[in-house]
């Protein structure tokens, strides 16, 4: 194939704006408006890639999303875009384009010898190969050789794609002739239309095929439609691919913009029209994948829209009337054209060499077409353009739940009326030809006669099918290197379902999604199994219609906008006090205060908190108010510990279990009055605990008797802990009521709300002081001054972790795993005593829940100063080495002067007093199994 640029044709390109780029190191010239494909074609570059498996040379086949071969790696400045289709990528100056799946490049690929081994690489190659012995030795090499482009891990595309929610009355997908007619009629009747097309301009196939509409050039009708749509309050979206249809008429659209970041839209449409046209099928003959074999429609598109003439001696092989326009246009552009029509009653083609009843059986050439074999005779040519008919583009229709029927007249699967709310029109509905497209589009929304055209309605095409008896290798899926023989082999091996065929042969997979191959696969499978095409069925159409960059789907919710952290009301004050922040349970909280090594600061804070006093910000702890006459009943059901027996003014520690019996969360429940509780969920579990409470409230307890309010973020809680707690609080001018441990009271402070709860997460006397956010700074300032006077210190979460570990207080998710039940943690009372139902109860009594080998919560005593690594496995000191459990928390205790550790250990409580091995990074040290509480085991400090 020898390409050239026609002197006049090319409606999309601007010859006054030259552009250049490199392809595999070769400089290529083009114009503004060119795609990479059109520029390469015009420059006569015919090998654009290598096939997936056999590394055969491949050139252009299609003109848009249907292109299976020309997939490139594109770099522009710092930007890297892998797997770009040449046919849909606009040429930009200074692009560096390289072929994929080739080494060193497509033209000189050193893996091309793979093609000679094709007999050893049949359908199902991967399945068969990786069952063989020692597959792990060669799997990495095969994996490296397979695939398309590679992502550059060093390049992170900017997170700048906004996601937009849009609503429209009428969405028309496709702005070809049928879409234009529908939009024109709808807009004139007052409908607000969104007209969307993936091309840069309205018109679709009219750009290449042209035509007269209402007595004028079609462009006048397109302009009138644009005006009517905009005038009626509608919108025109070009360069926009509607790539998925979802429930409730929600459609995803990728808007490609040249003047800014792309956009991603979720469009909710009251009514949707599918005018997505059709995709031309290939013909199946030996070597039909050679560079130079191209779709007729694509050849016409490149000629008319880009002025790229893809060959000089062209053979057109067809079985339908539509290709005659292509032949005529190519001949008029100066090419020598031979038209081969399979039909014996084919119409006469004026001024073109024509062969009727001509069967193309093979293409010849090594790296590009040099001749074609027609009826057994060699015909020299440098390009073969072929058409095996048209397949309606029904992806959106099927994604929305629509079914397909076989239309023998049109030789295609077409939408079955009434199976989807979408409205297919034009070629997408199997109505081919300009006249039918305009008529079906207008009929949806217009009255009377629609746009007139003098275009001739094409005759039904002659069915064309792959011929299994034809010698040579016929490709039916060029992207995935699937041949007609592969389908036969799959059928012989029992994979006769189309879904099995797809997975066994990879037919219709990857970025191509079978746009040009599915029909051939179905037809071939139907032929070899003696079924009809409808009996053979189709594979499932799934979004996206064409590949969408992950950066578009991810949008802006990346980096620091991904999983955003909640922020403390007192964050600025903590900053002023020297806090260094970390994320804890979805909140940004002070880890330590001051300058220096974080571990040293945490040790110092933990020591001062034990010796004098410390204050930490406990605001993220959940504050879920459960209110109503059914509140006690609800909490009894959702909690492991019974809460309805709690007295007003008191608090109780408890667990919430999952239905599997696993401990989901722990925390304190406060009862303020007969019908009002506060669930103090873990910081990271507030939303989850609320959801579980809500489930039970609505489904079990009765939604009119109890309600849940989350006021976590409206309140600030400062916890004062340590032996001088009372001094600090008194020094702050706060009169504490006489509260027992686990007592709670609401009492005003300077006329404002204050809740005081005597709850300890450190083992020392502690008070949680909770005030509204607006009063938090006042409370902080008072406590801060008093704390300094007492010699105490603000402590961060790292110190709190040490303090709670010294006392053996668990942290759900850190000290528990996905198997931990409450009795593993030593809480057996409710399990043995409660005879009522509660969430997770039944799972506790299963054989697994009652197993004697469950991992139980224990402490570990370590000799020496070295702190064992969290996660270290515990193993027997003798006998075969196996994991008995692992360390969940491990710290150096500044108050004990030695390391402490907590662990989940198989049958751990029975092992207290014994020694187990602690295995980490190849070394083993002995540790003693002890009670989890290492500090103040008689709990004297809690009331001290």
């Amino acid at each position, binding site marked *: 194939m020898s390409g050239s640029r026609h002197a006049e044709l090319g409606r999309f390109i601007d010859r006054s704006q030259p552009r250049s780029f490199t392809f595999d190191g070769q400089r290529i010239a083009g114009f503004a408006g060119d795609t990479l494909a059109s520029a390469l074609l015009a420059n006569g570059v015919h090998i654009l890639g290598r096939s997936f498996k056999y590394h055969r040379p491949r050139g252009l086949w299609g003109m848009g999303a249907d292109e299976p071969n020309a997939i490139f790696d594109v770099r522009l400045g710092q930007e890297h875009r892998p797997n770009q289709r040449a046919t849909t990528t606009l040429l930009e100056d200074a692009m560096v384009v390289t072929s994929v799946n080739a080494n060193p490049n497509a033209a000189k690929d050193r893996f091309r010898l793979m093609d000679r081994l094709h007999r050893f690489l049949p359908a199902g190659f991967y399945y068969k190969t990786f069952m063989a012995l020692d597959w792990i030795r060669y799997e990495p090499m095969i994996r490296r050789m397979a695939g398309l482009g590679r992502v550059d891990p060093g390049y992170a595309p900017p997170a*700048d794609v*906004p*996601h*937009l*929610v*849009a*609503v429209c009355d009428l969405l028309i997908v496709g702005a070809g002739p049928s879409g234009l007619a529908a939009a024109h009629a709808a807009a004139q009747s007052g409908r607000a239309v969104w007209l969307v097309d993936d091309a840069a301009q309205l018109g679709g196939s009219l750009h290449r095929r042209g035509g007269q509409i209402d007595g004028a050039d079609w462009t006048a009708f397109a302009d009138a439609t644009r005006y009517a749509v905009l005038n009626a309050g509608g919108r025109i979206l070009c360069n926009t691919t509607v790539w998925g249809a979802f429930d409730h008429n929600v459609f995803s659209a990728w808007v490609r913009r040249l003047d*800014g*970041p792309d*956009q991603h839209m*979720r469009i*909710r449409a009251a009514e949707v029209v599918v005018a997505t046209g059709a995709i031309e099928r290939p013909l199946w003959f030996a070597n039909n994948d050679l560079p130079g074999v191209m779709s007729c429609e694509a050849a016409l598109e490149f000629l008319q829209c880009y002025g790229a003439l893809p060959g000089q001696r062209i053979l057109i092989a067809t079985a339908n009337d539509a290709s005659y326009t292509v032949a005529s246009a190519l001949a008029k552009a100066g090419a020598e054209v031979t038209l081969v029509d399979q039909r014996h009653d084919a119409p006469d083609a004026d001024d073109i060499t024509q062969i009727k009843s001509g069967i193309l059986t093979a293409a010849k050439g090594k790296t590009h077409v040099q001749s074609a074999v027609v009826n057994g005779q060699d015909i020299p040519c440098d390009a073969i353009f072929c058409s095996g008919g048209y397949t309606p583009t029904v992806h959106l229709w099927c994604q929305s739940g629509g079914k397909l029927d076989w239309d023998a007249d049109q030789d295609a699967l077409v939408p079955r009326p009434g199976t989807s709310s979408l409205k297919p029109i034009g070629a997408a509905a199997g109505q081919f030809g300009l006249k039918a497209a305009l008529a079906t589009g207008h009929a949806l929304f217009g009255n009377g006669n629609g746009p007139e055209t003098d275009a001739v309605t094409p005759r039904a095409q002659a069915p064309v099918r792959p011929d299994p008896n034809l010698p040579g290798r016929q490709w039916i899926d060029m992207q995935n290197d699937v041949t007609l023989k592969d389908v036969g082999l799959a059928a012989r091996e029992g994979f006769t379902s189309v879904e099995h065929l797809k997975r066994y042969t990879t037919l219709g997979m990857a970025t191509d999604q079978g746009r040009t191959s599915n029909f051939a696969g179905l037809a071939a499978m139907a032929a070899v199994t003696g079924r009809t095409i409808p009996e053979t069925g189709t594979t499932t159409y799934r979004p996206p219609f064409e590949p969408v960059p992950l950066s578009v789907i991810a949008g*802006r*919710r990346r980096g*620091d*906008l991904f999983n*955003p*952290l*909640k*922020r*403390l*009301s007192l964050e*600025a004050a903590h*900053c002023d006090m020297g806090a*260094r*922040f*970390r*994320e804890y349970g979805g*909140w*940004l909280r002070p*880890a330590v205060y001051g300058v220096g090594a974080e571990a040293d600061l945490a040790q110092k804070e933990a020591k001062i908190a034990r010796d004098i006093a410390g204050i930490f910000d406990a605001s*993220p702890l959940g504050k879920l*108010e459960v*209110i*109503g*006459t059914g*509140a006690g009943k609800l909490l009894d059901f959702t909690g492991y510990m019974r809460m309805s027996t709690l007295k007003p003014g008191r608090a109780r520690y408890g667990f919430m279990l999952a239905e599997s019996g696993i401990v989901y969360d722990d925390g304190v429940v406060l009862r*303020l*009055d007969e*019908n*009002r509780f506060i669930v103090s969920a873990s910081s990271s579990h507030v939303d989850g605990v609320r959801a579980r409470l809500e489930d039970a409230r609505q489904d079990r307890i009765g*939604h*009119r008797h*109890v*309600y*849940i*309010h*989350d*006021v*976590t*973020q*409206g*309140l600030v809680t400062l916890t004062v802990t340590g032996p001088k707690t009372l001094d600090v609080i008194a020094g702050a001018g706060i009169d504490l009521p006489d509260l027992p441990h686990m007592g709670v009271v609401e009492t005003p402070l300077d006329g404002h*709300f204050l809740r005081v709860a005597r709850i300890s997460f450190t083992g020392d006397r502690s008070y949680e002081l909770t005030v*509204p*956010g*607006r009063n938090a700074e006042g409370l902080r300032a008072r406590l801060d001054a008093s704390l300094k006077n007492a010699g105490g210190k603000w402590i961060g979460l790292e110190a709190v972790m040490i303090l709670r570990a010294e006392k053996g207080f668990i942290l759900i998710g850190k000290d528990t795993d996905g198997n931990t039940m409450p009795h593993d943690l030593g809480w057996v009372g409710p399990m043995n005593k409660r005879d009522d139902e509660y969430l997770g109860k039944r799972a506790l009594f299963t054989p697994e829940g009652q197993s004697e080998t469950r991992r139980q919560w224990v402490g570990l005593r370590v000799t020496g100063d070295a702190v064992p690594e969290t996660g270290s496995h515990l193993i027997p000191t003798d006998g075969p080495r196996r994991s008995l459990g692992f360390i969940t928390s491990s710290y150096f205790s500044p108050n004990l002067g030695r390391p402490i550790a907590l662990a989940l250990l198989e049958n751990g409580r029975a092992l207290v007093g014994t020694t187990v091995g602690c295995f980490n990074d190849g070394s083993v040290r002995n540790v003693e199994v002890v009670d989890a509480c290492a500090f103040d085991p008689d709990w004297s400090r809690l009331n001290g």
Partner: protein
Amino acid sequence: MDERDWTDRPLAPETPIVLGDLTVTMLPQAGSTYLVSGKMDEVVGAFGLDNGIICLLETQPNAGSFGIRTGRNSALIIYPDAHELVPGWHPAGFAVSAAFETYETILLSGPGSAMALAQGGVADINATSKSAMLRFAGVSVLLTQGENGYLLWVPKAQLTYMTSFLSGRN
């Protein structure tokens, strides 16, 4: 690792953030707010709300007390001035909690406000809804209208994230 460098576009009532054609202004906090659930008819009567309970995208009154519906049988009650309601269960069939500063209110004004809503939302905000609560930029917020633009009631701990999200829009 110092993790202070998170999204940081704090908003103060006296300093609006101007983002091209969008202005984000933090409004002063209401006098007092309450979360109520239960029989809404009883709530309106019992609390003597001046302006009733408004729904999604309805206009907030300039003066007097009102509610914003947060669900089928729940609402956020707003009093411009300090107001004392008894939290807990009310025998008439509703529950009351003081909400304190659970929500901060930000005003989105200017020509870009509709586009800002389109970028953060996931639902059709023009569809009528009794509840003013919706997901916006991944956060559950309340959406109403004021005289000068849209009003977003954002959970207090997520206000900084929200202003960062709005600052980075295109």
